[in-house]
């Protein structure tokens, strides 16, 4: 895209955080550093998307179309060098210390270039999120340790979050549904741990994962009451990748079916005991759904930018496609929708910083502690052993529950679901509409618009179908539905 006049989004000359959300100017006067970090994140993410993803995303898509197990390690390594895959980890511990707001901009920028590539980089925080749920200090430190260590060594490290089963997709995300589900997995309690059998499907990065975080019922007859969360190294005996799916879009990101045959999980790797697995799921969803909405926003923006580029360069007789008034009206409408969803997405990210997981990083004692503690010690074995002590573990967990109680989780499922539905419906609508403008020639793969169109649809399905998300929205808005009138 060499066109001189083209200065939108990825091609904008300067960060436009404050232009797209002028209200943040007020916040900047109170927290200049907070906004500056978001602007820096946007700038870095934009540069990465423009310089590294854009020149290659079509080639990667084609290679994965040929072979769904193809993975572009070079791109991953470049992202790893910039620590984009461990961005939320505190700076002092080796990450970028990015707020949820900064991460929202990271996601929007990367997904606007390629949703599949963006997933490979940003979904890696599943491990961290999964671990933070109970805030057991040893688990968190262990995970952070692993992530930072791998980043430094340029070693591949992937986490998968496996809840979906062949027989249950919506059923594993909602209590009422889970009570009635027919599980395809089972965790049998044995001496010193559990033995796991069954199948998980559609697992992002499942084929690359070093560790799988899976929810599995201890009693398939009572799935909701017995759902537990397990931490399973992929090298465990009995674990295997059954297949990698051939998808319509987002091909750069692998989706796999996983088999468990008598996989032994020791007690220490039970992250949530039977009965608490659903809560674990809900807490992750309370964060991830909103980010998927922001990913949808990115796909929409990418489709729009590509559409505008095409329309500027496409001649119809002596005019350009963009000179047509119907085209201008349609683009204006899409810009309006994109901006509205961005406001919702940013508001969600601000709320995460203020009231959810990120608040933990921001805690004064923790902050002060990080400041005075030497970096060596932060990632050392001695801190890890300290964190394993029952007292510290309990204190961490208690603190977390005080700061982020269950009501907050359900509030964020509510907010996140709204952003998710809005953002992903936007992705599908905008990608389709841009195609309708650029016509058959604009759907030639070189313009990337057909890829945006293929990528968009699945966002309405994963992280809970948009129907499942709407069920959550209604239930939360009307908690006493039966007593409404």
């Amino acid at each position: 895209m060499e066109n001189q006049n083209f200065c939108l989004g990825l091609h904008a000359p300067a960060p436009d955080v404050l232009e797209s959300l002028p209200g943040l100017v007020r916040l900047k006067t109170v927290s200049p550093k907070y906004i500056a970090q978001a602007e820096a994140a946007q700038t870095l993410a934009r540069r990465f998307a423009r310089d590294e993803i854009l020149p290659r995303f079509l080639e990667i898509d084609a290679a994965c179309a040929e072979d769904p197990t193809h993975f572009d390690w070079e791109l991953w390594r470049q992202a790893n060098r910039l620590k984009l895959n461990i961005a939320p980890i505190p700076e002092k511990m080796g990450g970028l210390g990015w707020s949820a707001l900064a991460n929202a901009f990271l996601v929007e920028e990367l997904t606007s270039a390629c949703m599949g590539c963006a997933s490979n980089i940003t979904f890696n925080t599943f491990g961290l999120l999964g671990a933070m749920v109970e805030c057991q200090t040893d688990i968190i430190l262990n995970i952070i340790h692993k992530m930072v260590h791998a980043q430094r060594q340029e070693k591949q490290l992937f986490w998968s979050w496996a809840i979906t089963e062949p027989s249950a997709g919506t059923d594993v995300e909602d209590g009422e549904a889970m009570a009635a589900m027919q599980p395809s997995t089972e965790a049998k309690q044995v001496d010193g741990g559990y033995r796991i059998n069954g199948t998980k499907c559609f697992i992002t990065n499942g084929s690359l994962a070093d560790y799988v975080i899976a929810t599995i019922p201890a009693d398939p007859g009572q799935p909701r009451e017995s759902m537990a969360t397990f931490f399973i190294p992929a090298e465990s005996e009995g674990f295997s990748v059954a297949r990698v799916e051939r998808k319509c879009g987002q091909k750069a990101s692998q989706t796999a079916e996983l088999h468990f045959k008598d996989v032994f999980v020791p007690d220490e790797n039970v992250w949530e005991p039977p009965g608490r697995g659903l809560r674990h799921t809900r807490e992750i969803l309370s964060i991830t759904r909103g980010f998927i909405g922001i990913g949808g926003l990115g796909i929409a923006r990418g489709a729009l930018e590509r559409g505008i580029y095409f329309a500027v360069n496409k001649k119809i007789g002596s005019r350009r496609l963009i000179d047509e008034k119907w085209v201008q009206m349609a683009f204006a409408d899409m810009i309006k929708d994109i901006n509205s969803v961005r406001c919702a997405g940013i508001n969600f990210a601000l709320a995460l910083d203020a009231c959810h997981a990120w608040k933990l990083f921001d805690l004064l004692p923790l902050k002060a502690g990080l400041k005075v503690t030497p970096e060596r010690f932060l990632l050392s074995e001695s801190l890890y052993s300290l964190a394993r002590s029952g007292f510290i573990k309990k204190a961490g967990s208690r603190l977390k529950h005080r700061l982020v109680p269950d009501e907050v989780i359900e509030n964020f499922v509510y907010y996140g679901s709204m952003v998710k539905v809005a953002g992903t419906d936007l992705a599908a609508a905008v990608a389709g509409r841009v195609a309708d403008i650029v016509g058959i020639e604009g759907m030639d793969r070189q313009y990337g618009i057909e890829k945006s169109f293929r990528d968009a649809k699945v966002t309405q399905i994963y992280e809970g179908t948009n129907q499942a998300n709407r069920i959550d929205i209604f239930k939360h808005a009307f908690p006493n539905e039966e007593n409404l009138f």
Partner: protein
Amino acid sequence: METREYNEIIAECRRFAKKEIQPLALDMDLVPALETLETLWQKSHALDLPVLLVPERFGGIGYPELCAALVLDVLASECAGVASVFAHHFAASVAACITNNKKFLGYFTGDPSLPAAILFPDEMGESSLNLHKKSGGIVISGESGIAGNAKIADAFFGIIPNGALEKDPVLVRVPKDLPGIEKNDPLKLPGLKANCFAKVRFTDVFIEKDWIVEGLKVAGGLMDSVQNAYYGFIAAMAMGVSRKALETSFSYARQRYQYGKRIIYHQEIQRMLGAMQMKLGLGTAAYMNLFDPKKINFSYFPADARLVKAFCTDAAMEVVMDAIQIHGGYGYMHEYGLEKMMRDIKILQLLGGQNPYHQIRVVAESL
């Protein structure tokens, strides 16, 4: 033709599509193969599809255009890409049949071993094809708009402005292998992959007088008839895809359990299936009415063919999107065939010009 006859043809085509097209559809979507398509074409002779529209006295079976549309509906339910090969051939047949010219129709009565392609004077100004005199002969020059069947076609039927005779555009039939004909690289489209879309470039291609038909009131008459039929064919294919999407969704929703019951018992799934059924029923009625219009004295009726195409393809996109949604994650995977429908419909929406643009043109031209 009697309703019974239509139903017989539909049944026969359905058997053909199930037996011959369905087993190949997903593979052709991954790796389009010209030979496979050629074989399918050969087999379609058993049903007389290549000469479906050609009058009996010219050796065809002379069925009405409505019949061709119904055939396309059925073929598209197994693979819209394959159906689109027949659609372009049918559009070329419509043009040839209007001429009532033996030489032209000779191509079809020779039991065409390969389909024909049609080159329209593109509405968005894409085509620069023109006819002019050179060294005592007549030549075609310029580039066509994006055309279906570009690779497989045996002959091109072009409606071309006539600079040589300074008159209305003419209909020209050009054998594919003449010197000066060059096919651009095919577009890499996400849908209708079994077909191959490309622009065709003509550099001073000398043509024989016999290949030109003029004086047919071509500008209004022929061109409109061919284009209208073409839009109707696109609409029919979109409905065929929707029909299959709806059937598949019904049967999936009947057996998939979530929330402790078959999902077909969830009201929201019922609403989606109902909406799909509504779009399919009305879209089908709309395209059938296009070919067999009831002459009722209502304003804005019957609908303009471009609007029928816009309506049916847009409705089909909503149908296939819902079909994927009902299938959850499975709907997004290649082997289920639903995501292919979404990609195919996207191209049907764009074929023959963008839908919003058609809406504008219908009004602008009436002023």
